[in-house]
């Protein structure tokens, strides 16, 4: 699936991550890495710890054990804000849009980190603040064009159908121009057509902007089709890691997961 993009060095390396909630083990001693520009999938049955894994990567959860190496910098855990500044952006399994705001405003929040003018200038909406606002508006309009959501620009997201909300959520993440994009089941609950659209967007993002993508997905056909490497979790443990073909033929995986699906 390499469209001329060069898969680079490891940029994110997770080493021996363990996460517990009270007495419940969500993740046990998980290690895997993500290379620059690749599409990396995390799969596994329900409750395998996939979402927890993403939450560890961008700092929503703090693992009790383990090390995260991002761009050569070693740390025990991430701070959510630091993760955002370092270039992580993310979508959620159950859409986490700002429901009271318009599509445009939702996407503009993605630019927030890059907006520097202080709030007094914003209150006056004057000079640098106005120029900055307009410059970022232009960027956001590019994302709107890219995702083909021009017609709903000013609609409050709460009123949009599910499929479009998912797309807007991707847009908000893209507006941040992330280095690494974390997608938590971007195609869940979509019909075939919507899934195809979403696949196309994911591949285009990866292709055009070279964005590294880590995604969780249930649809095996999609995962096998678009990802470069796949890591498989089951009951909070890693049971396989490799190219789609390797994973497909792994016995543990077949037993734990694919066996049920086929």
């Amino acid at each position, binding site marked *: 699936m390499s469209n001329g993009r060069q898969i680079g060095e490891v940029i994110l390396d997770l080493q021996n991550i363990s996460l517990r909630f009270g007495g419940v083990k969500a993740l046990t001693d998980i290690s895997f890495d993500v290379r620059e520009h690749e599409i990396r999938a995390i799969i596994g049955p329900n409750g395998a710890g996939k979402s927890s894994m993403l939450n560890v990567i961008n700092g929503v959860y703090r693992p009790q054990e383990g090390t995260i190496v991002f761009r050569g910098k070693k740390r025990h855990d991430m701070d959510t804000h630091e993760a955002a500044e370092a270039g992580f952006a993310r979508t959620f399994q159950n859409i986490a849009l700002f429901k009271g705001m318009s599509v445009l405003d939702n996407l503009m929040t993605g630019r927030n980190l890059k907006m520097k003018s202080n709030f007094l200038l914003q209150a*006056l909406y004057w000079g640098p603040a106005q120029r900055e*606002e307009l410059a970022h508006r232009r960027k956001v309009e590019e994302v709107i064009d890219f995702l083909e959501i021009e017609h709903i620009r000013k609609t409050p997201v709460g009123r949009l159908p599910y499929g479009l909300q998912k797309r807007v959520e991707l847009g908000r993440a893209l507006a941040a121009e992330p280095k690494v994009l974390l997608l938590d089941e971007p195609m869940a609950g979509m019909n075939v057509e919507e899934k195809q659209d979403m696949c196309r967007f994911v591949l285009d993002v990866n292709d055009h902007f070279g964005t590294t993508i880590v995604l969780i997905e249930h649809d095996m056909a999609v995962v096998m089709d678009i990802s470069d490497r796949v890591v498989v979790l089951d009951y909070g443990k890693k049971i396989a890691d490799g190219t789609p073909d390797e994973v497909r033929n792994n016995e543990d995986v077949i037993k734990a997961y694919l066996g049920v699906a086929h």
Partner: protein
Amino acid sequence: MLYREAGQFKASYKEDQQIFPIRQDRIAIALILAFFYLGVPYFASQYWLQGIMIPVLIFSLAAIGLNILTGYAGQLSLGSAAFMAVGAFAAYNFVLRVPGMPILVAFVLAGLCAAAVGMVFGLPSLRIKGFYLAVATLAAQFFIVWALTKFPWFSNHSSSGVITAQKVVILGYVFETPEAKYLLTLGVVTVLALLAKNMVRSSIGRSWMAIRDMDVAAEVIGIRPMHTKLMAFAVSSFYCGVAGALYAYTYLGTVEPEGFNLDLSFRILFMVIIGGVGSIMGSFLGAAFIVLLPIFLNISMHMLGDWVPQGLASNLELIVFGGLIIFFLIVEPHGLARLWQIGKEKLRLWPFPH
């Protein structure tokens, strides 16, 4: 002139980002401003100016303050009146103790004092949400009123903390007549309302709403919850503080800490709920509604004559306020501002049904 946006094409994002993108809206706003700046002082009676217009404006400002905190940033507060008190007493002390202090500067400093106090009482919002926070803001309400009463320094050793606002003088002109006080209040409120409108439509406002709608997602996108929430408390309290200073200087003249009690805080909250949560326009509508309603009830009681039992009017007021809050929360949670919006949308299509 029909209310239409058809034919008004935006050639640049700059035009699309205007505060009032529809031309008819701009004309309407200009007319409204002209009416309040020129018409009202010319036609309105002294009672209307001093007894209705000035308090409506001041409460609008306080309601904008609470709306920023509650409507935009989603942090419920039951202590708005206490922050007004901080503003009133701070302005009084700045004018009293700093020789030659210009009154408008004193108002700004008063707002800043209120902002600082607001941030202190906003600290718990970093760990708690919803009604837990509401309880925490009650601490501010009771503590501030108590402190202003008990520490005589604040009221320059007057009995039970009563202060009398000094004369309002700007560049040698003394604001004594209701017209002058009204225009001063209107000026301050117009400027601050405009600034508030700009804030809520730029990145700080989007951060507030993001925290309100989905705090985890906001954090993940890089919005700092602490910074954003404390900013909301500071800006909100600043508005309440300036409103408090105006309350003392252009409305009542003489105030005491007890006047800024929990009941007043509730009233401001009601203005926000009835006017429209998350709407600057709604803050004005809500304030007008809450100020006018008791007057209206009183007049209708009088018209009913002598057989109305004593004290019914004030109880009726409680019942009507309470009932309206429940009614609005059920039927129109976005308040009068939403009704206004619906009216405009209807007008946009008029005379066609769809």
